[in-house]
């Protein structure tokens, strides 16, 4: 596998090279799926790779990505459960494993507790899937979602039946094993009315060279449904991770998401939450903990399209080394979405002199009877707090680590899965200890 240099200026050529493996995908027996893919291929042909000149990508330079050539993952390596056991989450008795984007049934296990969890190939006949797949994360203007859809083959499907509360979290484990491979993880979660489920999306790597993960997740909540969505991005240090997630909320549904970004050289996460009916609630929390030359970009959009919606958002970045954190949080209140109650906070901690952050909390309000607030702060550790801890006998570095940890722990503690929470807390503690 040799890396071919592609000049950044001919972005179209680059996209063509990414699409090169697409025709080799086996056609699906489902006509709608083939059409969806074909439409996406057409869209990729029209769209271009975003540059710093695009407002949505102003601070995130993905030209390093376009300088490398990636090929679709070849036959995945046979992994043994022992290789990946350390990624398992004890509470989750249902686990789907995808190796380089390809479903690995021998590593997966599905508990028979009523929640339908399957790979797309096995369950695609369900009519509900055609109605939702590709309908929330639209690819019309989004080249990465279009690329993902063009390669749509394996995908995690989770359907929680009417009024059922899933007993245990569903764990989706996406493992990268091949260098210079592009993988296209895909997930669709349908929570029927009155149901409740916890979903863990987990991105890990077994190798350190560059690769490209381009993920799309779609989550549709029916009336009164409840979804806890935990997303952990701990890709390899040279990885490129670009992900789109679209969430649609029906009447009185509740969506709670915690996303944690730790890995990847360049990562970008777009989360769009659309409130399609009255009385919905969403809580969107995020933590990016990055160092060295990492770049973590989070773009969220909470679209209050209907009255009586509630949203809460807290996003934190801990930035060390010469890393760069980007946050763009848009709160949209559409005409008529009265009694919306929304708050948003972006807090950023800079640990070193060359770390930097670009944040933009954004409000667009078209209704008058609403309560919307947002706030943003950027700063370093408070010297008085450090002094206080030192006066209690802690060393300078122990004091700083403890404060840094506490800053991030506020988000970690919102994860409803105990073992994962504990493990991520340990990771944050370790990461902060390594940093100067």
């Amino acid at each position, binding site marked *: 596998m040799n890396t071919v240099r592609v000049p950044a200026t001919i972005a179209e050529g680059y996209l063509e090279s990414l699409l090169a493996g697409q025709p080799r995908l086996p056609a699906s027996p489902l006509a709608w799926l083939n059409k969806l893919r074909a439409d996406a291929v057409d869209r990729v042909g029209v769209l271009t790779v975003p540059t710093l000149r695009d*407002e949505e990508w102003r*601070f995130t330079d993905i030209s390093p990505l376009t300088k490398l050539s990636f090929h679709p993952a070849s036959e995945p390596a046979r992994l043994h459960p022992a290789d990946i056991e350390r990624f398992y989450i004890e509470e989750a008795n249902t686990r789907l494993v995808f190796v380089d984007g390809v479903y690995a049934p021998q590593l997966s296990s599905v508990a028979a507790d009523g929640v339908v969890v399957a790979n797309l190939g096995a369950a695609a006949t369900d009519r509900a899937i055609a109605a939702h797949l590709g309908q929330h994360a639209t690819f019309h203007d989004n080249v990465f979602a279009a690329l993902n859809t063009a390669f749509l083959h394996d995908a995690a499907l989770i359907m929680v039946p009417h009024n059922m509360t899933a007993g245990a979290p569903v764990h989706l484990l996406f493992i990268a094993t091949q260098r210079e491979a592009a993988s296209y993880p895909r997930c669709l979660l349908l929570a029927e009315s009155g149901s409740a489920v916890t979903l863990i999306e987990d991105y890990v790597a077994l190798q350190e060279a560059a690769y490209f993960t381009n993920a799309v997740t779609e989550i549709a909540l029916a009336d009164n449904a409840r979804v806890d969505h935990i997303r952990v991005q701990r890709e390899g240090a040279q990885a490129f991770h670009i992900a789109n997630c679209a969430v649609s909320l029906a009447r009185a549904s509740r969506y709670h998401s915690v996303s944690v970004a730790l890995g990847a050289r360049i990562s970008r996460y777009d989360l769009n939450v659309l409130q399609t009916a009255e009385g919905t609630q969403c809580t969107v929390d995020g933590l990016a903990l990055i160092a060295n030359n990492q770049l973590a970009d989070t773009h969220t959009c909470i679209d209050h399209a209907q009255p009586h919606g509630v949203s809460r958002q807290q996003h934190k970045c801990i930035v060390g080394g010469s890393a760069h954190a980007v946050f763009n949080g848009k709160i949209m209140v559409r*005409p*008529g979405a*009265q009694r919306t109650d929304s708050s948003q906070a972006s807090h*950023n901690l*800079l*640990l*070193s*002199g*060359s*770390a*930097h*952050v*670009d*944040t*933009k*909390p*954004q*409000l*667009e*309000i*078209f*209704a*008058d*009877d*609403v*309560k*919307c*607030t*947002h*706030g*943003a*702060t*950027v*700063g*370093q550790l408070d010297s008085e707090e450090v002094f206080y801890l030192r006066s209690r006998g802690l060393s300078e570095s122990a004091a700083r680590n403890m404060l840094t940890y506490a800053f991030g722990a506020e988000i970690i503690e919102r994860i409803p899965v105990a073992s994962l929470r504990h493990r991520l807390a340990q990771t944050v503690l370790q990461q902060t200890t390594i940093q100067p």
Partner: protein
Amino acid sequence: MSAALQNLVNQPYKHGFVTDIESDVAPKGLSEQTIRLISAKKNEPEWLLEFRLNAYRSWLKMEEPKWANVKHPRIDFQAISYYAAPKQKAKLKSMDEVDPELLRTFEKLGVPMHERAALAGVAVDVIFDSVSVATTYKHKLAEVGIIFCSISEAVQHYPELVQKYLGSVVPVGDNFYTALNSAVFTDGSFCFIPKGVKCPMDLSTYFRINTQDSGQFERTLIIAEEGASVSYLEGCTAPKFDTNQLHAAVVELIALDNADIKYSTVQNWYAGDENGVGGIYNFVTKRGLAKGVNSRISWTQVETGSAITWKYPSCVLLGENSVGEFYSVALTNHHQQADTGTKMIHIGKNTRSTIVSKGISAGHSSNSYRGLVKVTPAAAGARNYSQCDSMLIGDQCSANTFPYIQVRNNSAVVEHEASTSKIGEDQLFYFAQRGIGAEAAVSMIINGFCKDVFQQLPLEFAVEATNLLSFKLEGSIG
């Protein structure tokens, strides 16, 4: 309640009359020839013509900015007359020689052009369409070494100062409208406060657009030398026309060591009628350079007029310990659109900035705050506090906030907060039970909402601004 409030916000524009005065208007259109004509009319030196032509050439290569949250039909830059001046015989020595028709116009607007007039203690430069018609208190200011005159006069008498500073804060090619302004600017105010002088009175410029189909392109340059300080006021109005006029101004402020410039604006250009027909397109670039140590630049603006406002008074904080401030009230009604805010660029060590922005939207208007706080790697110890609050009156308007925060230094502390609210039933009820009618209550609530900004205005302006807001929102309630 909404209906009562809707009634409150519909008031006619009282500065909408046209002065019938013989004018010297250049033919419509923009070309090198127009620029040479303007330059020749103003008897300008060769370097300034060159400056204009360079600007024009770079303007030709530029495109109109599209990122602002405003919508308007394409502007035909060839349908604008770039020079309009009331006909005058010779250069004036005293106020008594000014055309009485002009005097009456400004009398009507409440602008004191007589040095003995009511609001004594404010020196005024009056700009009518493209030219400055009068400047008061010039001699009194000259006694302490202050130069306050129109920029065309400054070009004639102090060319070295103008040449040194013109375009030094806002480069010609900064954006589409600065390039256009640099090519065709006709007049504006020039103000120079020498070393150690505290300006004994407030300086003021009053802008008036009178001619239909003309644009106003003024240029203001204020220089405060070491230890100097000045408070400068700006006011503007225009007659009612059912066409849109373009106003593209450039304002440059330079503060050297320990200097202090306070710039206040009450902008009340004609805003168009209740259907959004007519009104001024106000596309303005204002920037201050806090060049010296401990210098301070403070912008205060009350934006109530214009069909479209596109304006970001900025501070470049270059000197150590320099301070930038921005206080703004933006009121939009009917179909007005405002996209306004500020930029605070922290370059020097221990620089501080404060942003307080209050947006009020009513009717079908759109009101956006767009701000940038940028801390460069060198700006150790930089400090920023921003607050932007919006108030919505009615459910057809919008309030948006686009704050960009870019921090490249970890010793910086940056805070931003924003909130959105409306005038609550319960607040009006509280007033009503104390015997205060809805109209007075709304006025009081709005004044309270804007208090932080009004406190920054010089006294006369604070009174004017308070009246202006309540006037804009007053009316009969059924």
